[in-house]
């Protein structure tokens, strides 16, 4: 196992955590699992860096992929539970953990506004404004074209500004 790889993961740990939170819609426990699974995949060779982008961009892509897989699995489990009970009282709300994570009202407003955006717009905005990637790098993380990323960026920004202004009034 390359010590350089461990060092790389550790140096981006804070940003990776923020990105995992965004991918899991700020559900703390799921974000933690997604991040650990992404680390494991990188270290045991299931996820390999092929040099197409920067290592940081590539690792964010791995986190996104793991989070998507977890969300699909959770969705299937919820559906089985729904079929079994014929009611969805037992299904937890997607942002049930939001309250526990949000310590500041402004941050909570921003998270809630982001959760109202379509997933692509939310992801692009988070990668650009939070992680400070370029739009091109964000497109690489999400495996979409640059044109598509720009469109999501512009629309998402306008919508987010609108949501935040509405909430601030």
């Amino acid at each position, binding site marked *: *196992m390359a010590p350089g790889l*461990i060092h790389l*993961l*550790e140096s981006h*740990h*804070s*940003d990776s*955590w*923020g990105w995992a*939170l965004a991918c899991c819609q700020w559900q*703390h426990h799921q974000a*933690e*699992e997604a*991040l*650990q*699974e992404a*680390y*494991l995949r990188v*270290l*045991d060779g299931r996820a390999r860096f092929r040099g197409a982008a920067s290592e940081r961009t590539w690792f964010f892509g791995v986190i996104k992929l793991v989070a998507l897989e977890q969300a699909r699995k959770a969705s299937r489990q919820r559906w089985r539970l729904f079929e079994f009970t014929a009611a969805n009282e037992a299904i937890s709300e997607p942002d049930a953990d939001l309250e526990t*994570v949000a*310590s*500041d009202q*402004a*941050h909570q407003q*921003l*998270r809630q506004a982001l959760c109202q955006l379509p997933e692509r717009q939310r992801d692009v*905005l*988070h990668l650009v*404004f*939070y992680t400070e990637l370029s739009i091109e790098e964000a497109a690489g993380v999400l495996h979409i074209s640059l044109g598509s990323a720009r469109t999501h960026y512009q629309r998402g*920004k306008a919508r*987010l*500004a609108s949501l*935040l202004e509405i909430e601030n009034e």
Partner: protein
Amino acid sequence: MSEDHDHSTQSQLDTRLRQRFGALRESEALSAPAFRHPVLDKTALASGSKRDQRSAFGLPRLAAAAAIVGLGVFLVIDTPQEDPAAVYAGIMQHQQMQTDWLLSVSDTVLPAQQPVPTLYDIDAAIDANQDFE
């Protein structure tokens, strides 16, 4: 002029969003779990995916399976061989006992003793008929 205004508005918006996202980033960085070595840290494995949990439970399962197989082998070896004649005699005796039990009737279920009805004497009837003729 209008383009400059739009550009300025966009720039202001970008700045505001960057500030808000930056504050969020700082806040979330404080809540980040400590970086744990994902492979060497067993606690990370224990809280990890199902696959990892399965591997963590693999050894106890293997030990339990080996114990069950061992017990089975011990019982097979340890069981004494019975004499076939004795087994046959036992089975037959058991059957006989069952049969006897089925045939046995207690006093309480015996039918009540009834007087035997008068028998019709056919020879006497024939003789009587001849006398009549």
